[in-house]
């Protein structure tokens, strides 16, 4: 009985540490997305954090939700948004753009995605790879729908291969 109680307490503590950060913006276009590091995010409750604060507080299992119908560009600091228990979720009508390796979480190699977060694209949302350099990414990727304005759930926009 004592062990069971301890496990319950431990699980509750772990659940409590996982936080959902919501970036809600209608701003930005595909050609001129807003920078994620300039955005304020809402935490689980009513609190807010800057992007830098979110990354400083990042814990494995956290979820980043991008929503609001805008277009948001990722940044190099997202390489620290790590762990397979973490999630980046792109909601309906919203575009999340990444341009370099690491902007979708860390990358080890082609055969290992043990440290990259899950990327989940919801119907109507778009994950857009918009790059001018050769890059690789390997997060567990969940796709649904045809993307914002038919861009595709995954949009490939690379000038090099």
């Amino acid at each position: 009985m004592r062990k069971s109680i301890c496990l319950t307490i431990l699980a509750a503590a772990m659940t409590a540490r996982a936080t959902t950060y919501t970036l809600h913006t209608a701003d930005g276009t595909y050609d001129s997305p807003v920078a994620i590091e300039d955005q304020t995010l809402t935490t689980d409750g009513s609190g807010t954090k800057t992007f830098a604060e979110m990354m400083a507080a990042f814990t494995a299992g956290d979820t980043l939700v991008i929503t609001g119908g805008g277009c948001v560009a990722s940044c190099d600091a997202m390489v620290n948004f790590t762990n397979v228990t973490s999630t980046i979720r792109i909601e309906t009508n919203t575009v999340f753009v990444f341009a370099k390796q690491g902007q979708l979480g860390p990358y080890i190699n082609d055969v290992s995605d043990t440290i990259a977060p899950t990327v989940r694209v919801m119907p109507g949302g778009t994950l857009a790879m918009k790059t001018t350099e050769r890059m690789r990414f390997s997060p567990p990727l969940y796709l649904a729908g045809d993307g914002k304005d038919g861009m595709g759930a995954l949009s490939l926009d690379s000038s090099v291969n």
Partner: protein
Amino acid sequence: MTLTADASIRFRMSTRADFHYYRCIYLGGHTLTLGRGKTLTSNPTFCMNTSNVDPQGDGHIIVDGVTLHSQTSGAWSGDDSNTITFQNGGRMSFYNNSTTFNWTLIWNTTETWILSGSKDSGFTGTNRNNWAGPVRIDTPSLSFSSGANQGMTFKETVSGTGGLYANNGWLQFYSNTNSYEGTLGLTGGSSDSGIAFRTPGSLPINDTLLAVTNARVFLGPGKYELRATDYYVKAGTNITVTGGTSQGLWTSLRKFGAGMLDVQSAFAITGKTEITEGTLRVAAPRDITVYSVAPGIWQGSVHSSNATFVAEMDTDWYLAISNEVCTCMEQLRSATAMPAYDTYTWHGYVWNRTATNETWTLALSICGYSRLYLDGSWFRSTDDNGSVSHVNTTITPGAHEILLKVNPRNYGGNGSGKNVATWTDNMGFAIDRYGRNTTNYWDYVFPANESSSIDGGNGYWFTRDARDVGDFPEGTLAALSDDAFMATTTSFKDLTVSAGATLDLNCTNGVTKPLQVGKLSGAGTITNGSVKVTETLNVAAGAAAPLTISGKLSFAEGATFSVDEPQSFTRGVIYTNVVAEAIEGDLPAATALFAVAPGKISKTEDGRALTLMFFRPGTSVIVR
């Protein structure tokens, strides 16, 4: 990558994207669309490089205006309930591809299918570039653009309103239910160019058009039926078959263009056959393979070599070398050493004379390189191994073909041991009809023993093939089964071999059975076999070069001699019409011809040429 609903991946630029290194697209039973963004007009490539697809049920893929590139190996699970559709300029590309696709492919695009990289050699391999699921062609043509000698294999049904076209490569079809309706075309030029139809029905029985240029056409074993349509070759090699068909017989055949048309199956052409250019090679004549009531099995041997004995183990070789009746298969000639690399073969039928399936034990113990075939399938083998190999198998009622081949290689002589020896002395081939599956030699009956090779009751235990008409009293040719039809030789009702063209009878294994020709004419060459004219030997013009036969020429009783243009012959001049290795038997009758214009046909003194002369006016013929 996992789909949680129907989803798309779309390109905004035409830069290739790779999905690779054993990663998998899990479709979750949904549909993945690979497509273009709205502003892209060029065709980008989505590369599956050593990567996998799992449809997870009812998953599908649509390739819309994009190239799906399959490179090296990968695993696509699923079956023909899963579909991949190419549309709106979408296309497929194979590079070093060895991935096997069991999905249904729907081709609804006017783009080409690209084949490149490593390839199988000619028509023999199907490991690379094969589509193992059904294919449906909804556009006018599924076209391949490929490098030299690149080929594509279709293992399942190809259907739809369209056809197929390949350039400088090869195509082969295995399904017997193909029904595509468009033209099948191929332009050759490389050494492996051609189309192979591996089974009847792989060449659809409809009004589809077959057009081949500078390439070969292979027809695998079987009875092919062709509807009334045009089959033609624009130039170069190959075949044209016109007219309707009845009972699987081609009504006419015209071969023109340089090069060879190699037909691997026996066929009969009931109309006119014209070989105007190049070479038509027909399947080697086979004797009727209808088992007779005659007891015993055939045996034969051939002097072989280290280089060829493995090939001689192939099932077809017995046709040439089984030429003596074996009433005693004992000891595989153990009394005297079998010469190294001589191949011995025994062929016949073993009967289950009961009305029910029986479990028999088949055993093999031979010191040498041997192959035992049962009903045409390789069943057991040895290679320098005297220990017994035995297995139980179910034998259905009736006759079962057995073929045993032995080559001692250089293992020291004996192929088997003495009649009373133990198994370790290499007893040869034996059967226990009670299925005891032991190594006790006394449980077995040895076909090697003369007394046991004949079983009384309601028939012989072992019987052999018929070798001539009188040897199969059970039936007539007209009543032969499909299998028996397969074994008949090619025949022509009306054959013309034009000057410069060749008919290759392919009798390179010692078969002497002549080709049956109703009406024979022309000035070309017939090689590798003999000819028997059953109706008419026809001469078209006086100035024509002789027809040359590098075999024997004979005439059936009642055969006649005819001339198309008697006015082209100058009276009193001796024309040589046919030159053969030998002209045997009676010459054809020319009664009707000579009633109009008196003359004479005769053999030359050496018996090799047939000549014709019309008498000068006023010539007297003195009959003594």
